[in-house]
């Protein structure tokens, strides 16, 4: 039993590490493609007279898109495994084929979204399509491969009853939810509105006036991916990694002792995160202070 638990902890750590990489790649991919909520500003900018060279492939939110892609990758991998293909090869083929689907999605989504802005004078840049699509595909491959590999560990090694494709749906949607929740504000506020004051939200009146120029020439989405991969991406990775690791850890380690033990451990973890959250909130209030001296009614 001890050996099982030790093996389980090792697998849990590996799944958590895979999830961390997946979260970071997912957020960077979605930021390069403007797939999260900040896509609204990319779409709004030309309507306000700000023509730009930012990639936009947001025709679905991150969670459903990643639910589809990871489920597809997991389904193909599962089918190949059933045919007796080597595990690593099956994982790679599954992720590669899914990445091709993502590439088709990204291409048609960009053309569709940007072409709809023609009446506002926004051109479709073919060089942007060529250079950005392949970069989002590369990041998507990493995210899909690591998430499907993580699902495989859960199914084959840790004994979760869900088949691979179903685990793909569950964790694909959770990956997109965690990545968009954590990474979107960093891309939306800190990068697209770099010209606004630091330490304050973007005034509604400034909507659409996104930063369009880089150190040299016009800014494109590779610049945005470079920026968000420094903080938004890794933070999303740690968030998703913690979700996966703690979800598995509390079950693998404590399930053998008492059936209620993982549940109580989960509740204790929720309380710990609540305390941490409250500390962060009060720290910000004490450190940054209010925007105005006193509240007017």
């Amino acid at each position, binding site marked *: 039993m001890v050996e099982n638990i030790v093996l389980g902890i090792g697998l849990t750590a590996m799944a958590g590490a895979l999830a961390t990489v997946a979260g970071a790649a997912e957020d960077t991919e979605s930021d390069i493609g403007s797939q999260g*909520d900040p896509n609204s500003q990319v779409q709004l900018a030309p309507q306000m007279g700000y023509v730009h060279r930012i990639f936009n492939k947001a025709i679905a939110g991150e969670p459903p898109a990643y639910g589809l892609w990871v489920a597809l990758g997991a389904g193909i991998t599962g089918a190949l495994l059933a045919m007796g293909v080597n595990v690593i090869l099956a994982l790679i083929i599954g992720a590669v084929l899914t990445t091709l689907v993502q590439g088709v999605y990204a291409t048609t989504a960009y053309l569709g979204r940007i072409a709809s802005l023609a009446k506002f004078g926004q051109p479709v840049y073919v060089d942007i399509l060529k250079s950005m699509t392949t970069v989002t595909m590369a990041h998507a491959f990493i995210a899909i491969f690591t998430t499907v590999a993580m699902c495989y560990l859960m199914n084959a090694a840790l004994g979760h009853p869900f088949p691979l494709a179903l685990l793909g749906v569950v964790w694909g949607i959770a990956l997109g939810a965690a990545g968009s*929740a954590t990474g979107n504000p960093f891309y939306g506020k800190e990068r697209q509105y770099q010209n606004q004051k630091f330490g*304050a939200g973007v005034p*509604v009146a400034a909507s659409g006036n996104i930063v369009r120029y880089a150190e040299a020439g016009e800014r494109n989405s590779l610049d945005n991916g470079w920026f968000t991969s420094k903080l938004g991406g890794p933070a999303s990775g740690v968030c998703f990694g913690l979700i996966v690791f703690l979800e598995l850890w509390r079950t693998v380690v404590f399930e053998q002792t008492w059936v209620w033990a993982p549940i109580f451990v989960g509740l204790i973890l929720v309380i710990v995160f609540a305390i941490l959250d409250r500390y962060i909130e009060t720290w910000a*209030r004490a450190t940054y202070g209010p*925007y105005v001296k006193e*509240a007017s009614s």
Partner: protein
Amino acid sequence: MTVTPKPAGGVGMDWTSMGIGILIMIAIIGGAYIMFGATSVFYALIGIIVGGALIGFGVHFVPVGGAPAAMGQAPGIATGVAMLAGGAGLAGLFGGAWAAAMVPSPGIWVVCMAGAVGGALMMAITCMFVNVIYVYAMGIPAASGKVKTDPITGDTQTEYKSQGTEGHGLPFVSFVGGVIGGFLGGLGGTLIYYMLLENVYTDKALSDALGASALANVTPIAVSLAGMFAIGLFLVNAVLAAYNITGTIEGPHDPKFARWPRAVVATAVASAVCGIVAIGIVAV
């Protein structure tokens, strides 16, 4: 600056629509009782309806700011209502399904609580990271746009809102709302899964339906079917509740939260319709 809550619009119930919906639900429940009697299959339908209503209610707790939150223009988590609730509820379902697979079976309470805590934990981590990003990466403190003071901590909110915004980040009441939403979503989704797995997709029912000779062969099919229908029902209910919210919500202190009775009725009716289909594929 004045705290001006957006119009709560449409809190009232449309009794004609509600009445028609409830009639459909009663007809389905009555039909199921006539067909199956007071058997485990009938109780599974009741469990699915309760689970669906729990999801619909739970979604209203989840603080979702959508696109404005991504620009620090409104409080909440910067993603869609149904998407975030889906992520949390399905993470919960993962834990619940794992508990349900234990030998011997730990029982309905352990399974459902495992799902509920899984959803709550996912939301707790995600909500904390939202504040980590806002505070440490963007230098913005949390502030609600809908209330002057946090109902739980009593912290004043108005002076921490930056100019030209409705607030930003997650005040503590929104964090608690997110955890409760994840808890209820995970609980509802897992209840639906457990009801289908234990009461409907039993070895005998599936063996009869599929003509499988060895009973053990149908267990993975049962798990897959119950999982697929649980995910499907979850998304149906989360999207219905999201339509009821219309866009963004800060959590239980938001005026829009008062709309929950309408969503609970709608999700119960939708769950009854979907539930009878899920049951019908093997039990009829």
